[in-house]
Each structure stands twice: as structure tokens, then as C-alpha cells.
């Protein structure tokens, strides 16, 4: 035992991951050759699927489904799995119409390609984000399952010598009741493969009243692998002959390498293969990552200040940048902003009002802090193609950009999208914030596969931030103490305009103000506006995007207005939602769930003084309402219980929804209690979790979820649970302490126990 070099060679087969990865490679290389497979069009030129005529996305059955001889169904999902449960949801939806138990599915992320651009109303587009996956593909994926079932029945008809009209299916089998004969899907797959896909209009979908798996708490497909270390993430990818790389980024974006003073010493360090000058980063390639990291960290670099203008959509970080000062600058930003939403005439009503309630709120930059640090493995093959194992929420976009980086045609880049170790918006195409350009450059330079892993410290340096906002509110009440006018002017740069540039026609980035806009309350005069202030920071999408901060800002100020008018905040919401059946029901549902609304403060059984806060949000096509119960313990906010009612219209998996609400509650609490990405002198103060605390287990409250199915068009689930959480907590804290919490995180404020 103990001959390590041999062991290392055999380990890839034992550890599970590489087997999956190389199997994908095998399928790609031998497309159509695997006997008994119903599929195999993986989007490469010359593959069987490609040879067919162009078909509408989501209809080419063999591009999505492989049914193995044992009846296992392999499904290529248009959406990537990163904890939100979408692989299981896709298996439920397809399985329902295919008539195959979701438990028999193996789901992987699909490669790039038009077949997988199934998002309704978004032709040519494919992302996993915006809580869009299930709601935009529900119809398409059902139809896909039904088409596959039709093909299996046609194949069975030929084999059984019976007309299709006499056939039916039961899970995994086509049945001929008259003769008592049946054939398993696995037996039928080879014949079904050769059949043309029927006209998509020719299949009828199952009556929802007869659903077996949709709407059921079907067990997730990936839980066992994830409980035993068998799940493979990008950071785990291994291929033969691979080298490892670590980087040291310039302390400020835009700086370039002048000289590396100790470059010769670095090259001589143990295990080091080579040292590379990359744009804005020193990279060390080594046989093992720790050796690479040790050398990358030891690099003594004279960084050069940025010269000239930044490349499009990149920003040079100023040497004196401070987030506190930037927040102050946002607070002083002049003007009334550009109008994002208006009804009535709020400026006039406010101008004539005798009493105006005014307050300024702040939301900080925050980090994604997903637990898997970014990593990418790049391998150039002898035929000039490139394999890329890359965490991503948009395979086609990554393919296109990787092709540019590699200087080859997009069709020659195979994008593998492993499970994501958390994403929350982190893995979109973000120039300067994804490691794949480095992996490509290094693999090219050394002529061997290279896996780049960013250390946690490098990740905090190059992560995209959720925007910061400073929002000025003004409101006035009528004689009954009801809101008559409300104005919100937010100094902020939206994430989309930060990533892609401002709209040339002057259209605002709706994500800058979503959550200030789109509120359902019957306030007769409303004005929401944005003062655009370009950030020196690189911005990105963060779970629930603009809603992640704007609902905190709005719903907290709403309570201030309620207090000013002597109104109970729960009752006032109900009153201003009169006639809105969906939201009235939702608010009552969360009230019921919490045992009946009571604001407090009251003394709990343990003797602590507690209060409750309520808040609502309308994010991503769904509706949510939260109630939080809090106390102050040793100067720190403690959240004891969080009740949430959520209405996504209709559902696919109630258990996954409950898990997603728990997750969104955790992230919402983490944000409101703890999180703030601060910069001083152009650099992040926190480079790891010691200085950027995220919610630990002992601050997780009990979470109570009620799923309401109003029958409204299907909304999202991954993000909508988050936005109502921070304001529910802040409102409870404000009421309990008598001190209005107008900024996140609450750890920045001091409270008396």
C-alpha cells in the first residue's frame, strides 16, 4: 500500500466525480453510438441531434432524454442545480407527462445550445436566475415529457402489434391492457430513438387533477450524494495530467503587474511549475494547489496604477475609495431623480402638506459569500476543442465568451456545468469576477489542463457586490392618519446598468428600484425615483436583486408612517389592501400562522421583552408576507420566530418551497443582522468570514411556512422568500426599542438589552 503515484492515477475513478465528467466526455465523443439510448444530441456539430432539421427549443426529445436499459431516465436540464432543487422539479414535471417516477431520474445540466433555450417569452436566452426556471419552462418541459411518452407508445405499438389507441402507460412501462402485455421504457428506448418527434401540438397534457408527482413533496434527487461527499462541484473537477493554479489579484481592480520582485524565488519554490503574468493578477501553476497558493501569496508585486480609461463595463477602483464616504456621498446626491413609478401627484401633495414625515435609509453593499470558492478547470484537446468545467448560471454566454478568450469557435467549447456550491447570483458572466479566463490562458500557456481555484481571500477581493442604496423617503397623512402621499428617491446604481452600461434611450434599470416600485398598497399619490450614481465598485446580482434591499427600505418607512398616523402596521396594511383578495388572504394567512397578529411589546415565557414586526413583498411574480418576533439579548438582536406566508400562484414541490423559504429567511436575516461589505482605501476590509460574518446556526430562528396557492400565474420560489424578512425584523426591533432602524446591518446599531 502506499504507492501514492499509482493511487493518484486510480483515485479519479474511485471518487465519483471524474467518472461523471469523463462519461460526459465519452458521450460527446461517441454521440449516438451508445446502444439503448434514447438520446444524445449534446449540441456539437455532427452529432445525431444536430443533423436533424431545426426544431423549436424544448421539443427535440433526444436532446434532453436518455432512457437506459434499466429504465433510468437521464434528463439534461436547461437549468443548473445550486441547491434550489430545480433538478428535482424538472424530473417531477417531465416525469409527470412521460409517466416515469421522478425517483428514476438522473439529472445533469444541459450543454449550451438552442434546444435548451426553453424560457417562455425569452427566445435565444438561457439563464438560471430571476427565479425564472420553473415558471418559464413549466409548459415546455411538460410537453417534452408528453412527446417522449408518445414516441415510446409508438415504438411499443410496433413491437406489440397493437394500435396506439389500445395502449396506455403506467410509470416506466407501456401497457396493452387487452392482451396483458407490457414493455418497459428501457426496452423501448432504442426503437423510440429512431422515430421522428411528433408535432408538439399533437400531444395532450395530463389533467392537473390527476397529477401524481407535481404538487407533491417528492424527495430531492441529490440529497444522498450531497450527504456522503459524492456530489461533484467545479472545485472538485479532475482530469488526467491536470495542474493546479492559484492567483494573487491586484489589490485594486485596474492595476497591472509592474514587476514581480521575487519571481525567480517563486519559480524555485517546491512544486511550482511556472509563474504567469495575467491581466491584473499573478498566477502560479503547480502540481498541487497548496503549493500554487503558497507561491502566489509570496509574490512580491509592484503593482502599477491603472492607465487610461477602463475597458467597457470595467471600473478602476480608486485608491481612496471608502464605502462609508460613498454612502455619505449618496446621501448628499442632488436632485429629485428620474421617475421610475408615479401615480397621483405626490410632489404636489407633499408640497402642500402641513406635516411631512421624512427619513433617510441605507442599504450596504453585500457579498455573495457562497461557500464554494470559484474554480474553473480548462482543458485543450488534441483536436483543438476546449473543455471547461465552470460554475455558471448561463452556459451559452460562458461558451461565447470562453471561445473569445480561447480564440476558437464557440461550437468548439464544451461547457460543463457542475453542481454549484451555492450561487445566489454569483455565477453570471462577470468580467473580472470569473476565474475561467485565467484557466483558459494558463491551460494554453502550459499545454496541460489547469484548474484555477480562487482562495477565499481572492474571492472577497473580486466578488461582485449587491448595490448600495441611500433612499430618501417623504410621506404625508390624511386627517384619519392614512398615508396620502409617499415619495422614495433612491440614490443607487442598478446591477444591470452597472454590468451592461446605462440604457442609451434613457430607460432606467428596473432592478435599481424594484421593491420600491410595484407596491400594492392603496396610497393615492406615489413617486418613486432613482438618482443614478455610478459606482467605482463592480456590481452584480444578489439573491432577490433590487428587492433584497428595497423592500427593507420601503416596508420599514411604511411602519414609520403607520406610527406617525397612530395606526397598527398590520391593520394599516390590511386596510390599504382592501379589495385585493390575493394579498389580503396572504396577510391574514401569515397572521393566522403566527397565532394571530400581536405587535407587543410583550414579555415572553422566558422573561424576555419581545415585539413582532410585519412586512410584505411582491418579488419575481410571487407574493410573500413575513412576521418576525425579536428580543434584544446582550445588545444584540435575537430573532426567535419567523412566520412566512408565500403565494407563488401554483406549485410543483411543497417540500422544496419550504426549504427555499428557510434558505431565503436565513440569507435575509444574515443580511439584516450582520452583512456589510466595507471598503477602505480602495480595498475590502473583509477578505474572509472572520471579518465578514454570515448567519451562524445559533442565530437561526424557528421558521414557519405556509404555502398559499391562489391560482395566479406561477411565480418564482428561489428568491421571493427573502425580501420581506429584513423589514419584518427591522420593524419588530424598531417597535421594541423605540429606536428606528434605518440601515442594515443592525449590528451597526447599538441596543440596550
Amino acid at each position, binding site marked *: 500500500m502506499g504507492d501514492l503515484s499509482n493511487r493518484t492515477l486510480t483515485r479519479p475513478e474511485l471518487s465519483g466525480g471524474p467518472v461523471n465528467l469523463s462519461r460526459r466526455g465519452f458521450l460527446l465523443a461517441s454521440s449516438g453510438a451508445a446502444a439503448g439510448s434514447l438520446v444524445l444530441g449534446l449540441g456539437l456539430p455532427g452529432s445525431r441531434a444536430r443533423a436533424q432539421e431545426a426544431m423549436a427549443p424544448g421539443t427535440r426529445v433526444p436532446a434532453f432524454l436518455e432512457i437506459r436499459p434499466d429504465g433510468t431516465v437521464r434528463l439534461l436540464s436547461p437549468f443548473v442545480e445550486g441547491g434550489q432543487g430545480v433538478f428535482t422539479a424538472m424530473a417531477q414535471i417531465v416525469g409527470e407527462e412521460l409517466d416515469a417516477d421522478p425517483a428514476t431520474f438522473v439529472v445533469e445540466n444541459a450543454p449550451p445550445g438552442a434546444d435548451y433555450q426553453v424560457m417562455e417569452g425569452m427566445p435565444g436566452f438561457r439563464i438560471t436566475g430571476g427565479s425564472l426556471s420553473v415558471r418559464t419552462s413549466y409548459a415546455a418541459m411538460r410537453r417534452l415529457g408528453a412527446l417522449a411518452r408518445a414516441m415510446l407508445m409508438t415504438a411499443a405499438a410496433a413491437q406489440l402489434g397493437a394500435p396506439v389507441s389500445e395502449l396506455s402507460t403506467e410509470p416506466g412501462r407501456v401497457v396493452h391492457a387487452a392482451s396483458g402485455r407490457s414493455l418497459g421504457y428501457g426496452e423501448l428506448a432504442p426503437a423510440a430513438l429512431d422515430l421522428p418527434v411528433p408535432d408538439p401540438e399533437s400531444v395532450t397534457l395530463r389533467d392537473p387533477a390527476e397529477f401524481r408527482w407535481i404538487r407533491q413533496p417528492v*424527495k430531492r434527487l*441529490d*440529497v444522498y450524494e450531497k450527504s456522503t*461527499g459524492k*456530489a461533484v462541484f467545479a472545485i472538485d473537477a479532475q482530469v488526467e495530467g491536470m495542474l493546479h493554479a492559484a492567483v494573487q489579484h491586484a489589490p485594486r481592480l485596474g492595476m497591472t503587474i509592474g514587476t514581480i520582485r521575487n519571481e525567480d524565488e517563486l519559480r524555485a519554490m*517546491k512544486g511550482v511549475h511556472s509563474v504567469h503574468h495575467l491581466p491584473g493578477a499573478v498566477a502560479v501553476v503547480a502540481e498541487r*494547489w497548496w503549493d500554487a497558493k503558497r507561491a502566489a501569496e509570496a509574490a512580491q508585486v509592484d503593482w502599477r496604477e491603472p492607465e487610461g480609461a477602463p475597458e467597457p463595463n470595467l471600473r478602476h477602483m480608486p485608491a481612496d475609495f471608502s464605502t462609508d464616504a460613498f454612502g455619505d456621498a449618496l446621501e448628499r446626491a442632488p436632485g429629485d431623480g428620474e421617475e421610475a413609478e408615479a401615480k397621483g401627484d405626490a410632489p404636489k401633495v407633499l408640497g402642500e402638506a402641513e406635516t411631512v414625515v421624512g427619513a433617510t435609509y441605507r442599504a450596504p453593499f453585500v457579498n455573495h459569500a457562497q461557500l464554494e470558492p470559484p474554480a474553473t478547470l480548462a482543458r485543450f484537446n488534441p483536436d483543438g476543442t476546449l473543455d471547461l468545467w465552470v460554475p455558471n448560471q448561463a452556459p451559452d454566454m460562458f461558451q461565447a465568451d470562453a471561445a473569445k478568450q480561447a480564440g476558437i469557435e464557440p461550437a468548439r467549447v464544451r461547457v460543463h456545468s457542475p453542481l454549484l456550491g451555492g450561487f445566489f447570483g454569483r455565477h453570471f458572466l462577470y468580467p473580472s469576477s470569473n476565474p475561467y479566463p485565467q484557466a483558459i490562458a494558463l491551460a494554453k500557456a502550459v499545454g496541460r489542463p489547469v484548474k484555477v481555484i480562487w482562495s477565499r481571500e481572492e474571492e472577497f477581493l473580486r466578488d461582485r457586490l449587491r448595490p448600495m442604496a441611500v433612499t430618501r423617503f417623504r410621506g404625508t397623512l390624511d386627517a384619519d392618519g392614512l398615508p396620502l402621499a409617499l415619495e422614495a428617491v433612491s440614490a443607487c446604481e442598478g446591477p444591470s446598468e452597472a454590468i451592461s452600461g446605462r440604457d442609451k434611450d434613457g430607460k432606467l434599470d428596473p432592478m435599481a428600484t424594484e421593491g420600491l416600485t410595484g407596491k400594492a398598497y392603496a396610497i393615492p399619490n406615489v413617486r418613486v425615483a432613482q438618482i443614478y450614481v455610478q459606482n467605482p465598485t463592480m456590481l452584480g446580482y444578489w439573491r432577490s436583486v433590487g428587492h433584497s434591499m428595497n423592500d427593507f427600505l420601503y416596508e420599514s418607512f411604511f411602519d414609520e408612517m403607520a406610527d406617525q398616523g397612530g395606526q397598527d402596521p398590520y391593520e394599516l396594511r390590511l386596510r390599504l389592501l382592501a379589495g385585493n383578495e390575493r394579498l389580503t388572504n396572504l396577510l391574514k394567512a401569515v397572521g393566522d400562522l403566527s397565532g394571530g397578529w400581536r405587535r407587543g411589546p410583550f414579555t415572553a415565557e422566558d422573561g424576555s421583552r419581545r415585539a413582532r414586526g410585519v412586512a410584505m413583498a411582491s418579488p419575481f411574480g410571487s407574493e410573500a408576507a413575513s412576521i418576525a418576533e425579536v428580543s434584544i439579548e446582550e445588545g444584540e438582536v435575537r430573532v426567535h420566530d419567523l412566520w412566512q406566508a408565500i403565494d407563488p400562484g401554483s406549485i410543483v414541490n411543497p417540500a422544496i418551497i419550504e*426549504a427555499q423559504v428557510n434558505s431565503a429567511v436565513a440569507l435575509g436575516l444574515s443580511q439584516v443582522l450582520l452583512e456589510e461589505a466595507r471598503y477602505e482605501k480602495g480595498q475590502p476590509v473583509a477578505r474572509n*468570514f472572520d471579518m465578514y460574518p454570515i448567519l451562524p446556526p445559533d442565530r437561526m430562528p424557528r421558521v414557519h411556512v405556509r404555502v398559499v396557492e391562489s391560482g395566479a400565474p406561477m411565480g418564482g420560489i428561489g428568491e421571493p422568500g427573502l425580501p420581506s424578512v429584513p423589514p419584518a425584523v427591522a420593524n419588530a426591533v424598531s417597535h421594541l426599542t423605540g429606536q428606528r432602524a434605518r440601515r442594515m446591518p443592525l449590528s451597526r446599531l447599538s441596543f440596550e438589552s
Partner: protein
Amino acid sequence: MELRINRETYSVQSEGDTPLLWVIRDELGLTGTKYGCGIAQCGACSVLVDGVVTRSCVTPVDSVEGSEITTIEAIEADETGRRVVEAWVAHQVPQCGYCQSGQVMAATALLRESPNPSEEEIAAVMVNLCRCGTYNAIKAAMADLADGGERG
């Protein structure tokens, strides 16, 4: 140097001060143990060293020579570990799953030491971070395991 991992002996070439995590992952190719922070903050890298839950990202490999190391890859070979995995599946604990190897190792170490841990004991040991917020599911799984400790 020789290491005992999952009841096998490996001869290891890495420098003595290399963190155990990177020896396990890169040299032995056992990637079930995860890198999250490198400074013992998150617990994703948890392994057992002579039964004690240990953050391998800050454990120099030469400090565990002669110890019996268990990683997630061998978790089901352990009776307690197998029960933990079953409870994780029953409670559908993982979301993204990245932290769960470490969570399962921490749970196994606790239950091997204390088959019927109190809520306080569980809270004291189950401190690994989870960005997906699976904490309540972990708590529920642990409560089941603690109750079933006698039967294990």
C-alpha cells in the same frame, strides 16, 4: 510520511506544514472534503482525527501522522456515520450541499462521543456555517438521531 486515512495507509509527499485538507484533496484525490475558507471559520473541511472533529484546512499534515483519519468518503463504513447519512436523507437536509460533508462529520463525531446529546451539546458542536441556511433541517435531523441514540 505515512498517513492513515479511512483505514488505509498512504505515503504522502507533501511538505509537513501543508494543511491536511490539501493532502486529502489534491494528493489523494478525495474531494468529498471541502475547502471553504482556509482559516477554520466555516467547517466545510471537517474530518475526524482519532474520532475528534477537526478542521483540516488549518491542520498541518505532519501533526496527524500516526492518527486515524476519517473522511466523508468512509462515512458509511461507520455505523454512526451511516445513521447520520440516513437522517440527513430523511430530513432532506442538503441544499447546495457544499457544507454538508463537514456537517455530517461533525454530527458523527458528536454522536460517537455522546449517543444521546442534549440540545445544548448539539448546539455547541454543530457550529459549521451553511450559506443555504439548512440549520433547522440539521437541527431536526440531530434531534431524531439524539432520540434514537439507544437503538443505534
